[in-house]
């Protein structure tokens, strides 16, 4: 079992190395003179040359890669052209915001996904199932940015009950940073009003972001539960007179969770990078918006850092999912001990 996990870890590390090469090449073919862009068109040539040397941009591509990778291993991702400060500082600010958003979306995704999935199973082929089916199509057919726009129209103009921009309201001091997650930080400080405010700012982008995922996880949850429902053990449980809800939530849900978890986990991992437009539209200071700005401004080191971070998150999620699934499924859990 442990050996199996170790093997996975090694293979994921290899993918990570490949990812670093890929990201580096991708970003290096971006046209534009990084040093010149950093200093502006009017900066004297000597200053630009000096910066080019400092960034190792005057060396060959493999050598540049070496320095870049070495920097990363030492925790140095370079300096951003836009913010003009170390990219690690930028990431330290933007990543927690995205994590907070993604976590809340993930909670929505899992809760509503399971609830809707189970309800659809319970009323399979009846009208609640049909409604859920339609809802789940809605989540899939429109990209998050469309929902963001519509949600904005709805909540900002027609029923203005939720804030539409930023992480906290104007005039509220941000919390003392402990985790970087505002809600948690406010709670740690005992500032419940602050936590509530931060939560209200998060709700709309989180719902919008999780909409597609909810649809998908509800569909998958329903599909695998319906197929388990036909298995003899479900019929047996029903024959014993076990209440329907108990059968659903206790005996059917768990074996149906495997495919649900593997799909939903990937969806959640994708949330970290997929929030581009949602973050932009809600003016939410997250990593994706930062990445998009970096791309438009040809901030190559920042782009590569964002892509790397996103890649690490996805790979990490895959690894964790593998482990969780192998723990959940006794066939896999016990396979190595036999």
């Amino acid at each position, binding site marked *: 079992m442990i050996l199996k996990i170790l093997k996975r870890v090694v*293979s994921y590390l*290899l*993918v*990570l190395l*490949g*990812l670093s090469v*890929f*990201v580096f090449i*991708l*970003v290096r*073919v*971006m*046209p534009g003179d990084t040093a010149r862009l950093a200093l502006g068109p009017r900066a004297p040539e000597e200053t630009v040359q000096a910066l080019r040397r400092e960034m190792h941009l005057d060396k060959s591509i493999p050598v540049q890669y070496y320095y870049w990778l070495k920097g990363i291993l030492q925790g140095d991702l370079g300096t951003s052209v836009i913010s003009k400060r170390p990219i690690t500082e930028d990431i330290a600010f933007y990543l927690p915001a995205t994590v907070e958003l993604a976590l809340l979306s993930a909670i929505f995704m899992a809760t509503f996904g399971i609830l809707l999935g189970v309800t659809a199973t319970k009323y399979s082929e009846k009208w609640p199932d049909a409604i859920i089916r339609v809802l789940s*199509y*809605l989540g*899939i*057919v*429109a*990209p998050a*940015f*469309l929902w963001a*726009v*519509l949600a*904005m*129209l709805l909540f*900002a*103009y*027609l029923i203005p009950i939720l804030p539409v921009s930023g992480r906290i309201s104007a005039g509220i001091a941000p919390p003392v940073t402990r985790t970087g997650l505002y809600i948690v930080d406010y709670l740690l400080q005992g500032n419940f009003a602050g936590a509530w405010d931060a939560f209200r700012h998060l709700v709309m982008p989180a719902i919008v972001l999780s909409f597609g995922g909810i649809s998908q996880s509800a569909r998958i949850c329903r599909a695998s539960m319906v197929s388990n429902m036909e298995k003899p053990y479900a019929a047996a449980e029903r024959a014993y007179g076990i209440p329907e809800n108990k059968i659903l939530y206790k005996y059917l849900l768990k074996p149906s969770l495997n495919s649900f978890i593997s799909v939903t986990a990937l969806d959640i*991992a*994708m949330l*970290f*990078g*997929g929030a*581009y*437009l949602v973050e932009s*539209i809600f003016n939410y200071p997250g990593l*994706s918006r930062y*990445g*998009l700005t970096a*791309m*438009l401004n040809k901030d190559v080191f920042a*782009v590569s850092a*964002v*892509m790397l971070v*996103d*890649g690490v998150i*996805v*790979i990490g999620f*895959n690894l964790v999912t593998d482990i969780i699934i192998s723990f959940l499924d006794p066939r896999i859990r016990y396979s190595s001990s036999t």
Partner: protein
Amino acid sequence: MESCPNKIDISQVDVSRIPRRNAGENIRKLWYKFSLNRVSVVGLALILLIAAAAIFYRSIVPYPEHIGAMVDFKNACMPPSWQHLCGTDQAGRDILSRIIYAFRGALTMGVVAILAILPLGGVLGLVAGYWNGRFVSNLIMRVADVFLSLPTLILVMCVSSIMTPSTRNAMLAISISWWPWYTRLVYGIVTSTRNEVYIRSAEVLGANVWHILLKEILPNALGPILTKMTLDFGVAILAGATLSFVGMGEQPPAPSLGAMVSAGVGYLPDQWWMAVFPALAIMLIVLGFNLLGDGIGDMLSDAE
């Protein structure tokens, strides 16, 4: 699976001589299964309708000149009326005409981007699956893993931010980012059928590797590929719309749905029609492909 009874025969009989069922009958049977699901038929009708509108746009659009280099600021931002059913945009152009024309770009975007990568992704998957465990297989699948470890949207955006914004480059960016999904899909199917008796038999008979790959293994993968493709047309259209939403797609004056939404967002809520109608158009086209994809999926899985 229809080939099951033939499995044993295959080692004795010339493959090409297996009596094949009448193709027409097959299609009729599939269509019957497909048509049982009303929703899927709606999806098919939707797609056919949109495709027809896109192809014959010249005779449908109320204001053909509003698609090209034309501005009429006197009539900018007019609300929906009988003259302009969906209103006019910031340059006074008829939004309905532009939506109909934009269907062309959206359909092309989805269909071309996915069709273009199918041969590449598919062949790589076949190769990796057939020689599973060998170096070449590992290489292909690890490279695919690298691509898949990045959220698709980020990859698409990063690739297209390198190039000059245009429809062609947006499609290219989508193709570059998308192929590993097909490689992985085909790989999975190939590895699971790789050790079936009929494949082994064909090998023993000394069949050409490509014959085995294309004639014996590939047909198994066609169903899932077709289903995924239909669904992916929709997803690729969304990706394309997202790209043009941030200005990395079709350039003005040619209309594109994402860019129209993006332009319209700044005019919310007063000129709501500028964002809402193109947004509905995106939903409609993607909904069509989703319903159709689900229908095809059900049809083929029922067939088994």
